């Protein structure tokens, strides 16, 4: 198909399905934690706007959670259908980690999600808060296991190769492999940032349309506090993550920096713009800042780190993709820090809620958390190439022996079904957001239970018919 080989088709399919999937869990992680904070504040202060915000965001959460579940089901089978030699080679290590994710995280989420979404009037406030907390903890446990598995593929540890297969020798070393702590922090914080930007953009959308109430102001304010504090912290975590990568995966760093070779006694420049050319082993149209690369990565004026030419051509990742996805991530990160700072300056005199340029910028920045997150994943996953398990198994040796035809069929179907189904789902989600938080929603008591609108069901149904109709009518 389109002249692609079976390997390229399999990689495209995995990249497509996982990139689509990760959007939903990222928002799930962030919103679950946000809901814990909102409910905690409601219980502590008894200000109704926290409860109103809780009800509003829990509907968006429910829709988003459901789409994460169905798109995740595909992921749990693709390792076998498409990457059978990887599964055979590393299944003894990644398998138990994934199974623990199912047992400890999915169970916890499934067990408490119903009470969280539908049990507002059926259990006491303490037990309800506990349920929200458990769902949030479940999302973080899930993140922990899946990132332990992913990090092991990046920086494998605690294993021996026996009969050509990876055998676990020390589970603590497997789980707490060298890149795991950095990746876990970086990804969790990225999920929080993406959610904060999404929440802020929702508030900005309403304020720009003259829909102004204390709940909308509160959610903008909370999201901007989150952004101003966490965006700079994310930059620091990213810096540490980069140093860790330099130590364990130097070829990836060289690709991220577009750094081909060292010149004796000279510091490495930071390349702002370039078109890396893998064949000619050089950058074209490069714009460089002298020595800044050295300063960032070695924290010294003329420190050096390995260039791409120090690795055999077949051991180099695709430089242009890694180079540019990294720049997209960092560029958006810088914009997030600036937006946070701008918001802080506008706090005086409540200009935060009135400045149209600021609100427009916040609206535009809404999806950038998710874009940066996907760009970051491209950086780290493409940067791991040509390995699937770094230094141990090449991606080309991991792929199942399928022909082009079955892969072309499956990829086309995935593209059609995902765009249709999740397109509609995301449209429903945005309709809900457009409806906005309703003040005093909880005053009359929410009906729930058998025979009522808000019966406990699957997650997607917490958003009732009515919510969506009103939203549609409004738009």
């Amino acid at each position, binding site marked *: 198909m389109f002249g692609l080989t079976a390997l390229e088709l399999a990689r495209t399919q995995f990249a497509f399905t996982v990139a689509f999937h990760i959007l939903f869990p990222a928002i799930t992680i962030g919103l679950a934690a946000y809901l814990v904070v909102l409910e905690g504040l409601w219980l502590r202060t008894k200000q109704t706007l926290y409860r109103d915000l809780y009800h509003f965001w829990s509907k968006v959460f429910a829709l988003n959670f459901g789409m994460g579940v169905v798109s995740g*089901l595909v992921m749990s089978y693709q390792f*076998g259908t498409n990457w059978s030699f990887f599964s055979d080679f590393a299944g003894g290590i990644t*398998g138990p980690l994934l199974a623990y994710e199912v*047992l400890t995280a999915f169970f916890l989420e499934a067990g408490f999600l119903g009470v969280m979404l539908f049990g507002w009037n059926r259990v006491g406030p303490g037990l309800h808060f506990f349920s929200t907390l458990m769902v949030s903890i479940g999302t973080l446990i899930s993140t922990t296991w899946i990132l332990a598995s992913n990090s092991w593929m990046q920086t494998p540890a605690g294993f021996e190769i026996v009969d050509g297969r990876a055998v676990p020798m020390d589970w603590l070393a497997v789980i707490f492999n060298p890149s795991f702590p950095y990746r876990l922090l970086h990804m969790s914080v990225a999920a929080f940032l993406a959610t904060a930007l999404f929440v802020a953009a929702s508030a900005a959308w309403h304020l720009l349309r003259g829909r102004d109430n204390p709940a909308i102001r509160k959610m903008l304010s909370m999201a901007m506090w989150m952004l101003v504090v966490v965006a700079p912290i994310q930059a620091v975590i990213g810096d540490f993550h980069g140093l860790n990568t330099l130590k364990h995966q130097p070829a990836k760093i060289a690709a991220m920096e577009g750094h081909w070779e060292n010149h004796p006694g000279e510091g490495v420049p930071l390349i702002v713009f370039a078109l890396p050319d893998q064949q000619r082993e050089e950058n074209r149209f490069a714009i460089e800042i002298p020595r800044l690369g050295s300063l960032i990565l070695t924290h010294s004026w003329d420190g050096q780190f390995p260039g791409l030419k120090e690795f055999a051509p077949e051991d180099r990742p695709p430089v242009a993709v890694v180079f540019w996805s990294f720049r997209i991530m960092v560029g958006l990160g810088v914009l997030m820090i600036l937006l946070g700072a701008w918001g802080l300056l506008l706090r005086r005199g409540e200009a935060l809620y009135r400045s149209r340029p600021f609100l427009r910028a916040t609206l535009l920045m809404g999806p950038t958390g998710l874009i940066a997150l996907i760009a970051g994943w491209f950086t780290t996953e493409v940067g791991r190439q040509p390995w699937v398990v770094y230094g141990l198994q090449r991606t080309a040796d991991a792929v199942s022996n399928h022909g082009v*035809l079955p892969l072309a069929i499956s990829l086309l179907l995935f593209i059609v079904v995902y765009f249709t189904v999740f397109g509609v789902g995301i449209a429903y989600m945005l309709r809900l957001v457009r409806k906005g938080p309703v003040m005093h929603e909880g005053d009359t008591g929410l009906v729930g239970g058998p025979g009522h*609108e808000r019966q406990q069901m*699957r997650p997607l*149904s917490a958003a009732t018919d009515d919510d969506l109709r009103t939203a549609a009518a409004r738009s």
Partner: protein
Amino acid sequence: MGIDLSLIWVLIIFFGVMMYVVMDGFDLGIGILFPFAPDRHERDVMMNTVAPVWDGNETWLILGGAGLLAAFPLVYSVVLSALYLPLIFMLLGLILRGVAFEFRFKAHDHERHFWDKAFIVGSIAAAFFQGVALGAYIEGIPVVNRAFAGGAFDWFAPFPLFTGLGVVAVYAMLGSTWLIMKTEGPLQARMIQLSRPLIGLLIAFIVAVSVWTPLAHASIAQRWFSWPNMLWFAPVPLLVVFFTVQLLRSLRAEPHVAPFVYVLGLVFLGYTGLAISVWPMIIPPDISIWQAAAPPQSQAFILVGALFIIPFILMYTAWSYYVFRGKVRAGEGYH
């Protein structure tokens, strides 16, 4: 060696897949039966009978995948790539049907028919391709150097296509008896009527597979018809006859829970029969559970968690079924 970890894991996975077949079986069955209930309110009731519980059923499928990868990575890698297209079609069917389930109640009236169709097509596709995968698995999967050595369309053969249809019939039967238990009035009456031909189909399917597999595979004939195996396994066909008679009898007078229980029994017997046929091969015809096992460190590490946590999952599941017990009535909108 002390404990046979592989044996324990086979039992856990056998149990997990059984849970999946039974639980997702009846809710996929409802999608298959949708065309027989064109009325919107009846469709609402049908969906509402499984609305509170189907979400948990999918977890068993994920557990099946992850458990297989953890305990028998070779099986996970070989079988899943051998059954590539049927499994991809099944996953797409499950997505289509899973969201249709949700979006149907959120759609405007003029959009609803689209999600009704997605629900029907998704349910039938998921059931049919599970059956195809089962048939192809029993037919045997050629393995060379720890990799699938067959073709991408090997499953497109008479036996797998037949088992595909068979599983659709089995799930329809589970669905109809589930609805007999959970509904009343005209809908229940229609399901009782539908159950009779479905029983015929189900029995025809069981008999056909019981004749077809030993004829096609000498090892299966040997397993069942050699002495004294014949004696040990005799209860399986005898119980099938017994349950069928009981099932037909239970449909006659004001049926409630009984038909569903007898169908569960039949499904369990059929499933056990297949396990007897392939044992101890986990990738028929050549690879046994011990040859396919993950390193003992892997099997032991996850076994600790599984034995501790699965009881909690069962308790939660039982509790949610308890909460939503009883008949579902029209207008008693869950949505």
